[in-house]
């Protein structure tokens, strides 16, 4: 574990850099978001870099603005200041090279699993293009263990299965970065652990670059190569933690002392933030 305290004026100085393990895919530079005539600083001078193939988690108290940050990174809202760079070009609106996933599976109940997976292609390139990718969508479904469920409707799937379909829908456009907004927050604990292992496997196999917002310290530490800890009001990154636990990790890692140390450290940081 390597930890960088970001000093007395977090984010104000040089961007905090992770060790160079690949080229930067996603860069957030001096990003701020203010609401209601500059009275509320939701996000204050956020700087972060995610490198190719890195899995980044961000954790913080509720209301610290981490979901807002993710939505700005997805191009859904404009920032008040600063910018987001994805593979070198600024994000100024929704982009096809971004894949997103929410707490709810947000599947369309009138479409089969396969047609839900193909939705992003249909939106961007039309029905014909979507039809020609049915094979790819089917492969993705079997990758997450859902072969045989191509023709099932969301109403016939469990919560975990629905989120697996949502994963496939996110992957079908082969985005360069995955933005995950508490993707398994609505699932029960056991399903959640299995989904985390699954997500790790998929991200490792595809060397995906991902950024995940979560409330769960264990989940954040389990999945991440780099963990950003946020404090609230104003939302700032208070610490960046490199997590070098060996991969692939399975959930037995959560009982190991190294894992416990990191979780303990993160909890202390969050408590510290809460006292401010």
């Amino acid at each position: 574990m390597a930890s960088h305290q970001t000093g007395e004026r977090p984010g104000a100085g040089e961007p905090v850099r992770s060790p160079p393990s690949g080229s930067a895919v996603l860069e957030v530079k001096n990003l701020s978001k203010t609401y209601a005539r500059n009275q509320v600083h939701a996000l204050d001078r956020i700087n972060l870099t995610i490198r190719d193939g890195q899995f980044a988690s961000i954790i913080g108290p509720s209301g610290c603005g981490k979901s807002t940050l993710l939505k700005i990174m997805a191009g859904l809202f404009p920032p008040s200041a600063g910018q987001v760079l994805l593979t070198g070009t600024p994000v100024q609106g929704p982009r096809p090279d971004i894949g997103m996933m929410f707490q709810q599976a947000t599947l369309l109940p009138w479409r089969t699993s396969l047609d839900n997976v193909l939705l992003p292609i249909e939106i961007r390139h039309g029905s014909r293009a979507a039809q020609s990718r049915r094979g790819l969508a089917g492969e993705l479904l079997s990758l997450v263990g859902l072969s045989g469920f191509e023709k099932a409707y969301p109403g016939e799937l469990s919560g975990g299965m629905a989120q697996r379909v949502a994963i496939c829908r996110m992957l079908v456009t082969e985005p360069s970065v995955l933005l995950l907004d508490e993707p398994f927050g609505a699932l029960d604990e056991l399903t959640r652990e299995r989904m985390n292992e699954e997500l790790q496997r998929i991200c490792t196999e595809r060397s995906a670059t991902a950024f995940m917002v979560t409330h769960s310290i264990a989940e954040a530490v389990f999945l991440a190569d780099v963990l950003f800890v946020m404090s609230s009001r104003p939302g700032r990154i208070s610490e960046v933690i490199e997590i070098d636990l060996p991969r692939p990790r399975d959930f037995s890692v959560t009982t190991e002392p190294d894992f416990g140390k990191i979780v303990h450290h993160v909890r202390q940081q969050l408590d510290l933030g809460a006292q401010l």
Partner: protein
Amino acid sequence: MTTQVTTDDAADAPVVYEETESLLDRVPRAVSITVLGLLGLGIWQAAVSLELISRILLPGPAETFGEIVESAAGIVARDHVFDALWITTQEVILGFIAAAALGFGLGVVVGETKFGQRAVMPYLVGFNALPKVAFAPVFVAWLGFGINSKIMMALFIAFFPVIVDTAAGLASADRDTVMLFRAMGASRWQTLRKLKLPAALPFIFAGLKTAAVFSVVGAVVGEYLGGGKGLGELVRLSAQQLRIDRVFALIFYLSLLGLALFAVIGWIERKIVFWHRADPTDVASA
């Protein structure tokens, strides 16, 4: 820490829980419906037999049933009741289709555009507060005594619920899913067609069912106040002749007309909106 396992016979005895559902709720549905219906008929018959109300003003169930059968024979033989039923049916169906089209169109404008929500909706709400029946003579003046003035009345009474339900349905689309569509770069038209309209369908069908019932009301009121040759006019004439048994029989056929339209819409809804859970007010599927 030790855990003590009791091997008492008393503890091993199975615990039997009492049935908590009340006796009334355990009666089979068919039985309760039949009994309730017979009870109503019994009270009706008693009121007539005891002459609580004059037989001229309130015919008994048997006489009414006889009149229903007689009318049915007439309808099958295509007599004047058949002609009247056919005219009213056309008024109701055409009025309903017009109300559905206008209501849906305005509902999309109100539900999908800020302009519609801010500028159009206040006028529609004010419009809905008008005593619509009072416009019947105006429609007769404009469109004559034929079926057009009745179609207009049916449309006029039935279209508003379709607007409100369509607009509410469009707004009911899940917020995260709307966000996902934006993130996928969907155009407004794509979001409307692939997300908001399908999500609105259960609401739209609820509005159409209300409109089906209202368009029967509109057509009959139009006939009461504007003449014509439909069932409403026959009801009015029969009542003037104090043939209350006929009035009841004709009203029975009018309600069959409304029920039939309602049932057709419900059937189409179940075919199209297959993913939506059953509506608790849907009697047919209960």
